[in-house]
């Protein structure tokens, strides 16, 4: 995991005009971030393919195209910091440090999965790396993140809570209540709206009575920042500022990452609400991984063959993850009622 202390190591490049992350983080961190972005994309492609083959059931929500947002937000976080995630949460999970083996195993419904096969994609979590879980309820994680921040403040753990949610979620009452309480109590929490223009089929224009979600921050007297969610450094810079503010005890912030999902909403999407042109434009001109790779090369941090090596190692990890998942045991029917309550001595 990237640590804030990593920033104290020698930065990857010199020069006052370089974007934030190149000034702040060492080379390994930057390459690690690239690797994770690839890992997210390949994980989701692998999951998608496994789904098509009938190896995974249910539904899933892919975040392909949104990797810079997940990764950029998590970059300044430590393993101890906690996140709440969403139905579109694979990227958050990996960015925060989860192992794709156990994620695949979960999607395959196996006991080795992060949720012992009980949760699946929509509830993917890895508490050991601070991910309190994806959430099937839009907006469900918002108050929970505030609760995590309350614990951090009350027990003085120094942890920060980060709450991912979508543009659609910003119209839930939970959004309003959570942001208001976080601000009134000055809690160490960062609200991250991944605005991919649609909540399912409904565009923000048709659902949201304000131009930018970040504009709503003023209603809670907290900073609201808009960033290009497809530029890793921009996202990380905003995250860094908000996380540091939270750690200093100055309270919550709202970050809006403008981004886009390439795939349909879920596995049942006739795609009637967006144009092919719009999708093409985002895929061809604003891909977060391509843009990041271009910068890494431009600033002399990585060469093409190094990037190729990362891709290859990711492909291997994915393949191994799927094999692990396939080979893992399914839960026993007799264990159906395990984990409903905490087993007590």
């Amino acid at each position, binding site marked *: 995991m990237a640590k804030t202390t990593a920033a104290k190591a020698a930065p990857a490049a010199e020069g006052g005009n370089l974007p934030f992350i190149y000034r702040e983080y060492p080379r390994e961190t930057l390459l690690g971030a690239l690797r994770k972005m690839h890992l997210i994309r390949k994980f989701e492609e692998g999951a998608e393919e496994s789904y098509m083959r009938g190896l995974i059931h249910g539904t899933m929500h892919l975040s392909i195209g949104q990797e810079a947002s997940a990764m950029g937000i998590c970059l300044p976080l430590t393993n101890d910091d906690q996140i709440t995630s969403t139905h579109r949460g694979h990227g958050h999970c990996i960015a925060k440090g989860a192992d794709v083996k156990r994620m695949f195993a979960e999607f395959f419904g196996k006991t080795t999965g992060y949720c012992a096969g009980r949760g699946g994609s929509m509830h993917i979590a890895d508490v050991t790396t601070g991910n309190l879980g994806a959430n099937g309820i*839009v907006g469900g994680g918002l108050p929970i993140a505030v609760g995590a921040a309350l614990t951090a403040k009350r027990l003085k753990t120094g942890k920060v809570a980060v709450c991912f949610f979508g543009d659609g979620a910003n119209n839930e009452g939970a959004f309003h209540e959570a942001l208001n309480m976080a601000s009134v109590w000055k809690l160490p929490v960062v609200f991250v709206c991944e605005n991919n223009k649609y909540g399912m*089929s409904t565009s923000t224009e048709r659902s949201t009575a304000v131009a930018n979600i970040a504009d709503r921050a003023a209603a809670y007297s907290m900073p609201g920042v808009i960033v290009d969610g497809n530029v890793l450094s921009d996202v990380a810079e905003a995250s860094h500022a908000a996380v540091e503010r939270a750690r200093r005890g100055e309270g919550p912030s709202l970050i809006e990452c403008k981004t886009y999902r390439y795939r349909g909403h879920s596995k049942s999407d006739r795609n009637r609400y967006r144009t092919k042109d719009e999708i093409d434009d985002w895929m061809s001109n604003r891909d977060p991984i391509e843009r990041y790779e271009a910068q890494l090369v431009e600033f002399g941090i990585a060469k093409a063959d190094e990037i190729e090596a990362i891709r290859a190692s990711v492909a291997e990890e994915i393949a191994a993850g799927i094999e692990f998942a396939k080979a893992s045991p399914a839960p026993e029917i007799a264990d159906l009622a395990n984990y409903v309550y905490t087993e007590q001595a």
Partner: protein
Amino acid sequence: MDAAVRELSYSQAIQEAMAIAMEADERVILMGEDIGVYGGAFQVTGDLIDRFGPDRVMDTPISELGGAGVAVGAAVTGLRPIFEFQFSDFAALAMEQIVNQAAKMRYMLGGAVSVPVVMRFPGGSGTGAAAQHSQSLEAWLGHVPGLKVIQPATPHDVKGMLLAAVADPDPVMIFEHKLLYKMKGPVPEGHYTVPIGKAEVRREGRDLTVVATSLMVHKALEAAETLAAEGMDVEVIDLRTIRPMDRETVIESVKKTSRLMCVYEGVKTLGVGAELSAMVAESEAFDYLDAPIVRLGGAETPIPYNPELEKAAVPQVPGIVAAARDLIRGAR
């Protein structure tokens, strides 16, 4: 009635009912998340937006409490909204408007208003959607005076009961099982209603009364065939309405068969079968009972993701067969 009868799926039947209601009455509108161009998460509204336009097929923001409340306010003041929850689980976000407002408003105002709102709740497990997208919550609303709560099990009934619901002056809650949407069955054309509050005997029998709801009606009927092959004659009742429950039909049947089994997908404890059992145990049918009243309900767990666990969490045909066999043979 001589209306032509076609095979339609359950979701087509709902869509047809909504279209008929909207054609007949300008005050009928549809509200819900992604029911417009998307056609609804389960394609129930389908292309109705093309026919009736976005003013009458309204995509709401993701705001279940507010959305349901808008429907309630619209109903009190003159519209006839049909509000779709994308999943019945999200009712948990709107219980305040459903229960504290819609159900009670007429009573609290001493009869000065009615609240003719219809709400649709796609529920049930079996799609791998896990704990927050698979619940069967009809028992909650069945507990609430002021509401009517229905669970049609066939395309025929869902069309007729939805049309009855739209015509009803009071709030009607429709629980639709997601696995029923693709199920086909005969559906008459045009307008007809199936009364709210009446159960239907789907199969007559002498040895045991099985009262089932929603998807479980079909499982119970399948089980009854297996049992018939073994010489056991099972009566299967489709409860259809949770509130008000059809006491007479159930009690008459139990008086005939002397045995009762309830099959329902909601969590067993405090689920619909608890009421059925208690209703019979306090009725005159008690004296006719030859055996304990058995309930097969959902497991006392959230719905798990793994498909085998998921199946194990709700009644399945073999389990129904086994339980019925034991009950008829006196093994319990």
